């Protein structure tokens, strides 16, 4: 039910997540922020069990902070991805966390954004574009076709909206509202909170 989409552009990373939080047939919350900031330049987008997501993200955030305070330097996105994967991998055969993640981050040293795909079994892969949840079924082909390296921001946002439009159109479980965040050299910023209604001939109403 959760949909997360992300890709890397020219000196930024765009990540979008739907804002639904539900349990079985009930929608509990429609303004749920699944894109959690780990530090000033990294987002952990979580999908799956809500409780596990909260606990796990909290754990990662606190340990990344502890590293920062202890060593007076921030971890790179790659390091955080590896650390997160390690936590998932050691947990899977003991007390598994039912969370699938997209980790997006911007490293000042390389001046590049990067995106990682992590799942609850402990797999981790650096990707240029990807998605979690049912969105992955629909969005994969769109990104395969239209993603290019070094997309500038406007084109990237257009591409993201194209993906989200497709998710809204084809996913039977209605999820119209998405939150799009961007990470670049200035840090994390909320790009838009979009409400998509594909019946309106691909028009997108913007919230906020």
């Amino acid at each position, binding site marked *: 039910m959760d949909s997360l989409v992300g890709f890397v552009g020219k000196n930024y990373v765009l990540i979008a997540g739907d804002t639904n939080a539900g349990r079985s047939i009930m929608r509990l919350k429609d303004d749920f922020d699944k894109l959690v900031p780990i530090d000033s330049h990294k987002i952990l987008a979580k999908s799956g069990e809500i409780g596990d997501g909260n606990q796990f993200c*909290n*754990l990662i955030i*606190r*340990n990344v*902070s*502890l590293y920062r*305070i*202890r060593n*007076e330097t921030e971890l790179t996105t790659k390091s955080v991805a590896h650390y997160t994967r390690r936590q998932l991998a050691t947990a899977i055969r003991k007390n598994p966390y039912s969370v699938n993640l997209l980790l997006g981050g911007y490293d000042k040293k390389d001046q590049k954004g990067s995106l990682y795909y992590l799942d609850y079994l402990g797999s981790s892969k650096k990707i240029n574009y990807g998605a979690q949840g049912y969105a992955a079924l629909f969005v994969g082909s769109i990104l395969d076709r239209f993603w290019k390296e070094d997309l500038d921001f406007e084109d990237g946002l257009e591409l993201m909206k194209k993906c989200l439009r497709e998710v809204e159109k084809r996913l039977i479980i209605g999820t119209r509202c998405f939150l799009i965040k961007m990470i670049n050299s200035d840090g994390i910023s909320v790009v838009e909170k979009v409400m998509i209604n594909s019946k309106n001939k691909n028009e997108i109403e913007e919230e906020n």
Partner: protein
Amino acid sequence: MSYDRAITVFSPDGHLIQVEYALEAVKKGTTAVGVKGKDVLVLGVEKKSTAKLQDPRTVRKIVQIDDHICMTFAGLTADSRILINKARFECQSYKYYYEDPIGVEYITRYIAKTQQKYTQSVGVRPFGVSTLIVGYDSKGFPKLYQTDPSGNFSSWKASCIGRSEKPVKEFLEKNYVDEMDEEQTVRLTIQSLVEVVESGEKNIDIAIMRKNKPIEFLGRTRIAEIVKEFEEEKKRKEEED
């Protein structure tokens, strides 16, 4: 029977000799000063003169425990590392459970509790460290706390630990006024250290903790400027007399 062998043993006149010896170790350490202003906290430390071939930047006495809390210490540096590590972990642990940043008194209590534990355990010795902890409490007031090897802690307006504790404390008691602004607080801290630090302003580190801002270390040139102003003032006073 020697009453200083194991710390778990009281001496006949009610002293824990090992704890008192630990306080002696603190008195051998380089001086650290903390001063509380109206809305600012300043820490000053005397740095041990580094050997010629040593990189001075690796000798850091003022450390951050969390984004909003700093501390310094006097005594055995290696012992302080343990306390600092534990404190840093505790800060993150607190935030993990309560989602709120830790309070200054809370972490002070924790550090003091840790120090006390080591005065009442088998096979360990007390930490030879006194600490000065600064931060802002939940109401936004600046707070300065001191702990010592016995596990005592208390809040101070201005305090000093380490080898020049006595003269610096006397100086602070004479010259401290309530509600000082940032400039006055910094000057008082520097002045109190300059009196006692042998090698002058090159071996002083000053850190300023402002509310909701990261800690700022005062630059070398600025410290040198302020010290120069003191010396000129002193000269003028002497000439007048």
